[in-house]
């Protein structure tokens, strides 16, 4: 069953150089994400993969077309509604290390959990956060300042954070970029496990290993999205 549907979406950017040339990052594309599947997006650098994921996750409005989540037009929703949906239903693992480096590891997770008013369930939230940290191999790091973590540890923190609200869709933009083989396997198996619970995973990756976990593979090239045979 389709969880996210993109209809004829496209996006242009203006390069801020002297020439101010407009270029199409995403040519008119339709796309579907189904429950219980891992969808992988591969393609060369600068091809528009991250832009595509931004549009699907409600962070970047497309120039044309529509994105539906469970039948709701994402960009027709108010900012409040769309943001809350992103918090509750989407788990986003950004390409850069986007965590609060001045907060502790666990605070980074709780922040997301408490955003829409569950501060009163403090103990429960903490237990959940610790469980997730355990899952990504950051068991003993809960009270560390996030700024003290290594690249791979930050990545795993971002993964745990994306899962804290038990989302329906996980958007992972090159999550294995700075992970070793063991951690990559672990993360991929977590994703697999989630699909077994009926969640959907969108995975942008260059990783050969990941191919084995994919239900669908798409290649993004110069704004064109093409499905690849498995």
């Amino acid at each position, binding site marked *: 069953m389709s969880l996210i549907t993109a209809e004829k979406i496209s996006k242009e950017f203006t390069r801020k150089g002297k020439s101010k040339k407009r270029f199409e990052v995403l040519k008119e594309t339709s796309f579907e994400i189904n429950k219980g599947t891992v969808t992988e997006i591969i393609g060369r650098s600068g091809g528009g993969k991250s832009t595509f994921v*931004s549009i699907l996750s409600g962070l*970047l409005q497309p120039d044309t077309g529509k994105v539906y989540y469970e039948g709701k037009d994402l960009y027709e929703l108010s900012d409040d509604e*769309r*943001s809350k949906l992103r918090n509750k239903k*989407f788990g986003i693992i950004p390409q850069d290390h986007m965590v609060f480096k001045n907060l502790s590891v666990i605070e980074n997770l709780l922040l997301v959990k408490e955003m829409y008013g569950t*501060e009163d369930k403090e103990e429960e939230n903490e237990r959940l956060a610790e469980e997730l940290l355990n899952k990504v191999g950051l068991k003993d790091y809960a009270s560390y300042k996030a700024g003290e973590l290594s690249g791979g540890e930050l990545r795993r923190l971002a993964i745990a954070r994306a899962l804290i609200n038990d989302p329906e869709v996980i958007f992972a933009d090159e999550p294995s970029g700075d992970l070793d083989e063991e951690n990559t396997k672990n993360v991929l198996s977590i994703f697999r496990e989630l699909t077994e619970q009926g969640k959907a995973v969108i995975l942008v990756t260059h990783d050969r290993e990941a191919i084995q976990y994919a239900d669908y593979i798409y290649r993004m090239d110069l704004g064109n999205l093409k499905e690849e045979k498995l």
Partner: protein
Amino acid sequence: MRFRFNLALKNIKARAGRSSLLIIICAILAASVFGGSVFIRSIQNGLHSYEKRLGADIIVIPEEVKEEGSFDGILLQGIPDTFYMDRSVLEKVKETEGVEIASYQFFLASANAGCCDSPVQIIGFDPETDFSIQPWIREAYEGEITDGDLIVGSNIVIPPNRQLRFYNVTLNVAAKLEKTGTGLDNAVFGNIETIKSLIRSADSLGFEDFKDVDPDSVISAVMVRNEKGYDVYKTAGNINIPIEGVNAVTSQKMIYGIAQGLKNVSGIIGIITGLVWVLSIIILIALFSLIAGERVRELAILRITGASKKIITGALLWEAFLIALIGSVSGIAAISIVYFPFADTIKRSLELPVLQPGAGFMILTGFITIILSIIICGVTWSLCVLRIAARDTGLLSKEGV
């Protein structure tokens, strides 16, 4: 709501260095406004009470009291002094055109009174004709002021037995006057009979102080109330020209000097405060802009994890509010700790009457200062940071938004 507040608090704590810097600048802003306002108000109050306590339109003093010098000393700074002129001046002044009432005063400067650390000014007045001191005394004391009674200025310490000794004469303290911020706070007042008894006693004890002073034939000053509708400067001239050896000064002229001083001091404080403000606001804007760079990243994280623009704006405003609040409250506290203990020293060095405003004024000024800081901080903050909160293109594809 609670999340926004908590997020703001977390942000302040997580960036302790950055936050303290902002808090310090807000504190400086608040301290300059609060300190400046209270100080200017103190001088205004002082001037006002000085004007009120002078109580006469014209004051006639011996000519050798050059340009009100020591008279100013008595009135403004409470430096005890004495000067005398012939008693006949009083009668002459009374008969002068434009004079409605004239009453004399008699000044004694005592040595250590056994009551105070410093010598005090003793001022004798004539209860029959006095119009400048008694109305003031009436505010503090309703009863009769009889021979041997003293009314003391607010700086005089009253012993438990309510008696003060001067030259071995024991006098009753009938009342203490309200603070005026002028030299009169260091003076004691009594009727002329009381003064005479002091002089007699001083002479018999062998003090040289008043050897040549005969209270029956000399006086120190004549206080004049001007006839309504008669030009006060003309009256002063009417006194100055025919009567030898005296100087009639209008109270307007005396106050003018102080008002001028007040104007200068207020002007300087105004300029300093203005400079502090311009500088602080420039620093604040510069800092906020610097912070905005870091902020872009923080805001991107919040957006990605599902914070709405409302939540982000709310948290940012809370942060500005908390910084301004903490900053201005500590600024006011700091300036109070620095200023109030030194208020007396400042007062002396300025040679202006300084009367601290009441608690009501302080609280109101403090309150306004805090509000002002919050507005300034909020506006500059909004200019620098909130506009970023409104943008969010390509959060995932570009780190810098």
